[in-house]
């Protein structure tokens, strides 16, 4: 156990584990936020989460975390043991979230290499007060309840966990050598070790972690423990780190002696582990137990006699390992290379000798191709992650904001298992957060009367939906609130001068809705904590565009609005058309190509400045000759011999002259090495099937460059 004090190696583990546990915790809380109470399974789960974090933070000596989690653990211990009836659920939820936020904050500090120095006092006091109140209420009703907290009443009861027939009782006293440093920590490590096998464990002095002075007490008077366990004497002794101990007294007690001895420790802090038998009993209690919903976290019932797993709480998804993204990228590169090497082998010119009997070779090569294709698919899917975590955050936001604003809002989540590329998840979290916040703040009506008066249910509803369709992911935030007022938007746009004095009828609904994405545009009269400053929607749109997605807005006044993010499934692979100019291949993203046309000299308009335009069906487009722009030799100069590609980006078009089309293929986008200076109009490069490199045209860059020239 002593090596656990080696904090360096422990810290990573602690951060990872605690992070996972907190996520899980928040999941449970938000799942049940609207329920009247937590069911037994949840209470157990929260209790265990708190207990685990408490334990590991204690080992690492992050006292504030330990104290806070310990307090909350007490609360849930009480809930679990006593099943009080009138628990103010909302208040409880808030307390849990407060603790979760606190610990998350401290973990973040640790991650940044700082010390966790958050002040836990307020939280602890709040929790104390809350727990006190819980107990107070119940005491008033005259029911005697077990108590776990020494800070409350001196007349507390202590209920021994049900002792099985095979339980043993020990009194252990450790006397450390007088020069022992930090004997309180040694004592703690002993209790920590014993907790794993303990059904019940009491010790004195009890404040070994929080009180530095306890070290002196331990050295002077020894450290005394009372243990109830199923383990044998030898096993228990083996668990105690005896390196600095001068003397360890180990007495086996009978059950009666143990009961008497409890008196000595009775007023001391109690650390409890659920004994298997008791745990089963608690689980079996039908009281208030809700039917598990899909997605509920399943609490594994421990097998009897397997006390060892108590302190080790497994994260929900245990079959996941985290891999460095760089390694994944390297793997992806290698697989890409493998595919190319395969093509080189299979299409080797040596095979084209006439008269070669190749049927066996063909069979084998077919097999090889199958495997490489599959390999490619697997690596692609490895980068995909479900949206579950992102949606989880949204639940939290809806919860927080709706509470603060005093609105009653229900959040429905559909399709949270939709998978998207990891990069994209990172990019959509903030925009989505903003949209959700907007819906809660602006979308849903201020007063429930406003809703009921027009025949809507009093409770507002926000639907968060994700689906995967045709290579794109649609994530929509839908509310059944007041919707967007077109008239108001139009007037505001006029005021701001973003539109010239065109009548409203000249705009389509979509165009009017799009006004809200303009910078500085807010029809909300007051600025609130959450929104109304008019910054945000434009940022949302910008963020979404940076991952080549778009935002669709749909709204019916008085019925609600729907904001839909349409984003590509993955950024790493795009569908492209390979074209050739001179000797160089280029790739154009298929999505931005409007059409290919062959035009004659007569549709060209020459400006005296040298600019050229193309007239297509009466519309005039700017025209770029790639060969001239990039100075590529050996290319087509006559417009009749080449092909004109009409490209579109965000509503503006440009025509580009190329020599010929080569093929359409899925390409893996790679950045141009940073050593090469950035060229406008090129966004990256890729490998083609034959191993050669093609540059990817960046339509936005082409348009920009063109604009600058003019």
């Amino acid at each position, binding site marked *: 156990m002593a090596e656990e004090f080696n904090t360096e190696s422990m810290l990573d583990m602690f951060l990872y584990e605690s992070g996972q546990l907190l996520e899980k915790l928040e999941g449970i809380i938000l799942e049940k936020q609207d329920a009247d109470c937590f069911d037994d399974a949840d209470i157990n789960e929260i209790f265990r989460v708190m207990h685990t974090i408490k334990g590991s933070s204690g080992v690492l000596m992050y006292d504030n975390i330990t104290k806070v989690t310990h307090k909350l653990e007490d609360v849930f211990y009480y809930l679990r043991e006593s099943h009080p009836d009138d628990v103010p659920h909302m208040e409880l939820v808030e307390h849990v979230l407060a603790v979760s936020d606190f610990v998350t904050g401290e973990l973040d500090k640790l991650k940044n290499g700082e010390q966790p120095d958050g002040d836990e006092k307020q939280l602890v006091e709040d929790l104390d007060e809350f727990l006190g109140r819980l107990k107070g209420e119940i005491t008033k009703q005259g029911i005697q309840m077990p108590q776990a907290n020494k800070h409350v009443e001196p007349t507390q009861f202590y209920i021994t966990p049900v002792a099985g027939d095979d339980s043993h009782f020990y009194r252990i006293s450790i006397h450390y050598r007088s020069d022992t440093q930090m004997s309180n920590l040694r004592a703690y490590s002993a209790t920590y070790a014993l907790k794993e096998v303990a059904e019940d464990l009491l010790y004195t002095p009890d404040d070994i972690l929080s009180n530095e002075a306890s070290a002196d007490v331990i050295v002077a008077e020894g450290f005394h423990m009372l243990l109830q366990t199923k383990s044998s004497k030898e096993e228990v002794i083996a668990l105690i780190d005896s390196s600095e101990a001068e003397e360890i007294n180990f007495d086996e007690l009978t059950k009666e002696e143990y009961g008497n001895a409890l008196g000595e420790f009775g007023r001391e802090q109690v650390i409890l582990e659920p004994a298997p038998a008791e745990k089963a009993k608690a689980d079996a209690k039908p009281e208030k137990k809700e039917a598990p919903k899909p997605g509920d976290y399943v609490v594994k019932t421990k097998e009897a006699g397997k006390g060892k797993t108590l302190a080790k709480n497994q994260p929900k998804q245990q079959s996941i390992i985290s891999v460095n993204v760089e390694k994944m990228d390297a793997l992806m*590169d290698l697989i890409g*290379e493998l595919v190319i090497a395969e093509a080189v082998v299979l299409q080797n010119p040596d095979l084209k000798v006439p008269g070669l009997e190749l049927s066996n070779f063909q069979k084998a090569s077919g097999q090889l191709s199958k495997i490489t294709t599959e390999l490619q698919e697997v690596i692609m899917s490895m980068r995909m992650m479900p949206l579950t975590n992102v949606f989880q955050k949204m639940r939290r936001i809806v919860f927080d904001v709706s509470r603060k604003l005093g609105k009653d809002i229900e959040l429905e989540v559909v399709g949270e298992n939709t998978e998207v590329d990891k990069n994209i998840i990172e990019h959509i979290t903030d925009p989505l957060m903003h949209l959700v916040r907007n819906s809660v703040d602006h979308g849903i009506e201020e007063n429930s009367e406003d809703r009921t008066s027009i025949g809507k249910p009093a409770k507002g509803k926000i639907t968060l939906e994700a689906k995967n369709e045709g290579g794109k992911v649609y994530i929509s935030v839908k509310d059944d609130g007041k919707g967007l007022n077109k008239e108001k938007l139009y007037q505001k746009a006029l005021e701001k001068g973003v539109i010239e004095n065109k009548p409203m009828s000249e705009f389509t609904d979509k165009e009017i809705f799009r006004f809200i994405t303009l910078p500085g545009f807010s029809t909300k009269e007051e600025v609130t904590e959450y929104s109304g400053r008019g910054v945000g929607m434009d940022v949302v749109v910008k963020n979404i565009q940076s991952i080549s997605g778009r935002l669709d807005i749909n709204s019916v006044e008085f019925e609600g609005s729907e904001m839909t993010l349409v984003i590509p499934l993955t950024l790493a692979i795009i569908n492209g058309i390979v074209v050739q100019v001179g000797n160089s291949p280029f790739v154009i993203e298929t999505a931005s190509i409007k059409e290919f046309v062959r035009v004659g000299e007569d549709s060209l308009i020459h400006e005296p400045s040298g600019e050229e335009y193309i007239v297509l069906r009466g519309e005039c487009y700017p025209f770029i000759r790639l060969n001239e722009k990039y100075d590529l030799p050996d290319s087509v100069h006559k417009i009749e011999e080449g092909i004109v590609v009409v490209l579109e980006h965000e509503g503006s078009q440009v025509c580009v002259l190329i020599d010929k089309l080569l093929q359409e293929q899925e390409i893996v986008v790679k950045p141009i090495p*940073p050593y090469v200076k950035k060229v406008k109009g090129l966004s990256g490069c890729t490998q083609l099937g034959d191993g050669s490199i093609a540059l990817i045209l960046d339509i936005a860059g082409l348009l920009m460059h063109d604009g600058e020239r003019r």
Partner: protein
Amino acid sequence: MAEELLKNEETEQDELLEDDSQKGKFMTFQTGKEFFGISISYVNEIIAMQPIAAIPEVEDYVKGLINLRGKIIPVIDVRVRFKMEPCEYTDRTCIIVIDVKSTTIGLIVEKIAEVDTIMDDSIMPPPSLGRKEHEHNKYVYGLARTGDGVKLLIDPEKLIKQDDIEAVVEDARKEEQS
């Protein structure tokens, strides 16, 4: 970026000190009539000439990109970099792949010569006649006398960086401003 580069420099020097077997070893190659040497600790590998994808609108000595087993790296033509007349690529033309400050770059050289051991004491600073001359030789940090003549020792960091990186940083700054 600058910080990153500095950090890398440190680690690279550490490696240099650690790896005694590479000390004093230089990869020599011929470009034009002269022989050049480059410390072997920079050299990753030597590959045969490959098809190069040209990039438009870049410096003339940046020949383009090659595909090094899935990794796309830029290649520069040492001849052009030394402001010599470019020459045809032949069978003897090679690409030396070097790692400098975490950037992988290919150097196109006419002919690989050999790996030479050159002791520190046989390296002398290049004689400088005037400022102009000195400036021209800035990638050459020393002359080494070996059995069959004089070799010009190149500092690859200067060869590929210095003005280039400065230009990139400058560009980035301009872009930020605009």
